[in-house]
């Protein structure tokens, strides 16, 4: 495989994984809003089931993003601008953003696992609000990181 083709595949995988994170978070947020007309128990079951599936895919995508992200930096290699440059500052902020997204997402997954494992009386929960907050937060963090990524690539 040529260097250019492997570079292209790595970029494609990086973007596809980000699309999955963002699309999934927006989908879950929308679902939590639109399914409120269901019976509360049904709504709770649907949301937790969808959230659990998303979380499994989310972490697979995160692994792919980290691996391919390093691959993208590797393509620049020795020509990587220094940390004192504007590009360097943006990259450092982006990496910090990824760390924040990781910690926030682990908290989100822990909450989903706790709620699911408790076999909760989800009808009694302000579940929709909690899930909306979690997935809006995930979407906003992902958009911020994507913005920085676009800025790094074309800015």
């Amino acid at each position: 495989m040529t260097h250019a083709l492997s570079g292209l595949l790595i970029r494609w995988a990086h973007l596809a994984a980000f699309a999955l994170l963002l699309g999934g978070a927006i989908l879950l947020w929308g679902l939590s809003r639109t399914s409120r007309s269901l019976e509360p128990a049904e709504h709770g079951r649907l949301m937790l089931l969808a959230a659990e599936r998303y979380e499994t895919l989310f972490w697979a995508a995160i692994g792919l993003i980290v691996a391919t992200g390093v691959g993208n930096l590797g393509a620049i290699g020795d020509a990587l601008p220094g940390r004192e440059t504007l590009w360097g500052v943006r990259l450092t902020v982006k990496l910090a953003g990824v760390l924040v997204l990781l910690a926030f997402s682990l908290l989100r997954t822990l909450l989903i696992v706790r709620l699911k494992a408790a076999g909760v009386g989800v009808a009694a929960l302000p579940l929709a609000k909690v899930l909306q907050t979690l997935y809006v937060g995930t979407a906003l963090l992902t958009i911020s990181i994507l913005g920085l990524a676009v800025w790094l690539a074309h800015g």
Partner: protein
Amino acid sequence: MGPWRDSRLLEWSLGTFHTGFFFTILVTLLYVTGALGSLLAGLNTAVGLAAFALLWLTTWWCTRRALRGMGGNTWEGRVNFRATLYRAMVWGGINGLLFLIGPLAIFILFSIVSLAGGNIPNLPFLLLAILIGSIIAFGVGLLTGLVLGLIDSVLFRISRRIVQRLHVPHDR
């Protein structure tokens, strides 16, 4: 087994979180110190991806082993802080060793095959290198386990508090 410990999602998410967090911190530190560019320039893409995949696999497995030995108290929320950190450090150290052993075994195998019929490998030197490498790998893993164990414990507690505020019962 309790539902908490049964959770494959928990093992998968924690294992990936540990791998991703460690790797991102490492890349950030290397970049800030100016060592990243030259390091990546000398690294083959396939080798880099294989190294990440190996680290992901060993970290997931070690996280799984650590979680399964923690008992049901994690679910109840009453996490024994010291025991959690102890397990995180031990399994972090083991993870460091496992990550070293894989590439090392391949290297030794290739060395033996390529040297077959030629020079005999310098065995005492090789053993000394393995010993020193193992100590370093265990130490790095131990420290990483300590940091990640601390983060995990804090997030466990926060999630417990939130669930308590939602008045969710802790038992079925």
